[in-house]
């Protein structure tokens, strides 16, 4: 095995070994969202003509799970390794910072996609859903998971304690995903909040992901993809620079 595949393999083993907590738990959470919000709002909201609210909700929940779990994977894995000190085994080895980055991000993508697929597999029975343009869906899921995996690395590198990572998750990732239009179309918002939503990169990920299902979205999907791609480039470049500097990893 090459160095990169080993580290990647280790990261995957890590979350599969605790799959009940890393895969089953977020799937259950998403299912609860669907049951509760679907029940409460079914028939009261019609986002796109002829589309039931719960069918609208499912792709949003899937993408939210993809994003949050990609972030959770890289951030919790690295912060745990930092706190228990076992990150030293990787730091002592000839693994480069780029291999390190790639391994954590690939594992985060896999976790995000596995959980997303799980959420879809469980929720799809409750609604009438078709994948109109699966490639769009896949592209947004992939880029979004990579972006959040990379952000998770940043959060874990700069944090010294688990609660700092949790704060990152609770005060940045969760609000940005909730306000990205998972539960509503931003067209139902007042103009000010609509404009603000356009400054939220998560909006483009969720909106573009949803386009793959319905062939309809709030924003042109190609433009969304470009924005998500540019954000990914910016965040991963920053992450790579951070890792190269050895900040809080190599003193």
């Amino acid at each position, binding site marked *: 095995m090459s160095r990169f595949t080993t580290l990647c*393999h280790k990261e995957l083993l890590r979350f599969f070994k605790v799959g009940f907590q890393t895969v089953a738990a977020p799937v259950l959470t998403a299912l609860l969202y669907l049951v509760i919000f679907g029940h409460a709002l079914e028939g009261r909201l019609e986002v796109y003509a002829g589309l039931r609210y719960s069918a609208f909700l499912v792709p949003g929940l899937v993408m939210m799970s993809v994003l949050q779990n990609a972030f959770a994977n890289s951030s919790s894995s690295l912060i745990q390794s930092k706190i*228990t000190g076992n990150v030293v085994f990787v730091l002592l080895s000839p693994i480069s910072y780029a291999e390190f980055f790639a391994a954590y991000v690939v594992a985060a993508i896999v976790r995000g996609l596995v959980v997303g697929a799980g959420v879809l597999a469980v929720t799809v029975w409750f609604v009438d859903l078709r994948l109109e343009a699966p490639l769009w869906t896949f592209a947004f899921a992939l880029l979004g998971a990579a972006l959040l995996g990379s952000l998770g690395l940043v959060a874990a590198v700069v944090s010294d304690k688990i609660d700092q990572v949790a704060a990152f998750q609770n005060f940045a990732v969760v609000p940005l995903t909730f306000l990205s239009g998972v539960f509503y179309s931003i067209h139902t918002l007042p103009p000010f909040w609509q404009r603000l939503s356009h400054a939220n990169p998560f909006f483009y990920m969720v909106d573009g992901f949803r386009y793959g299902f319905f062939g309809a979205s709030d924003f042109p999907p190609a433009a969304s993809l470009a924005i998500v791609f540019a954000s990914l480039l910016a965040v991963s470049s920053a992450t790579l620079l951070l890792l190269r500097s050895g900040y809080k990893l190599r003193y």
Partner: protein
Amino acid sequence: MLGPNGAGKTTLINIIAGLARADSGATRVMGADVRSDYRRARRMLGVVPQELVFDPFFTVRETLRLQSGYYGLRRNDAWIDEVMHHLDLTAKADANMRSLSGGMKRRVLVAQALVHKPPVIVLDEPTAGVDVELRQGLWQFVRRMNRDGHSIVLTTHYLEEAETHCSRIAMLKAGRIVALDTTRDLLGSFSGLELRLHIDRAALPPGMPGQVVAADGGEFRVRLANYLELEEALVGLRQAGVAIREMEVHPPDLEEVFLRLTGKAS
């Protein structure tokens, strides 16, 4: 590397291992610069960290396989089995790291440092908190590695360990190497002998060689430079008709060298 706590032993090791970056200067492991040629330098080096760190998700064998993979080693099971055998880990090969005792975890750390057969092995305080049995086994194994051609770098603040196991000693104090020599020369050049005498009178005869460091009634402690001075001292005592009740000669002692080099007095 011998030095009191805070002398900089672990910092120096971290610089060699690439875990810390030196403010100035260059560090090379067998010719490979730890910054510009880090891949080669790290392959040359196996480090056993001081802290008892482990990954709770894996078994002993998984841990060693992963560690091999970090060095790009694909099929390493034969060597992993051999290392586990010599460190008495075979029975625990499939046990989760979490379930191991402290001593066992320490052995796994040693095994992890050896998966890539590094020519240089660094042990950072390897016997801290380790029981006697493991300590013996560990030293036996380390000696074997040394005989097989591996260089062993050891940090310790146990003087005995350095004296028994090391052929060269660097003494550190406040971030500086205050002495670096073979163990024998270090002991020879610094310490000399100490002669402890109990004689039948309250004063030593005049003209005795050496330096009296303690006197209490008929008991004296005299520091001598070498065995020649010891002979002269005995001749002097005999010629003065002094009766020796008890006599001990203490060979050079690393503790004394250590205290003189690192103690507050120096």
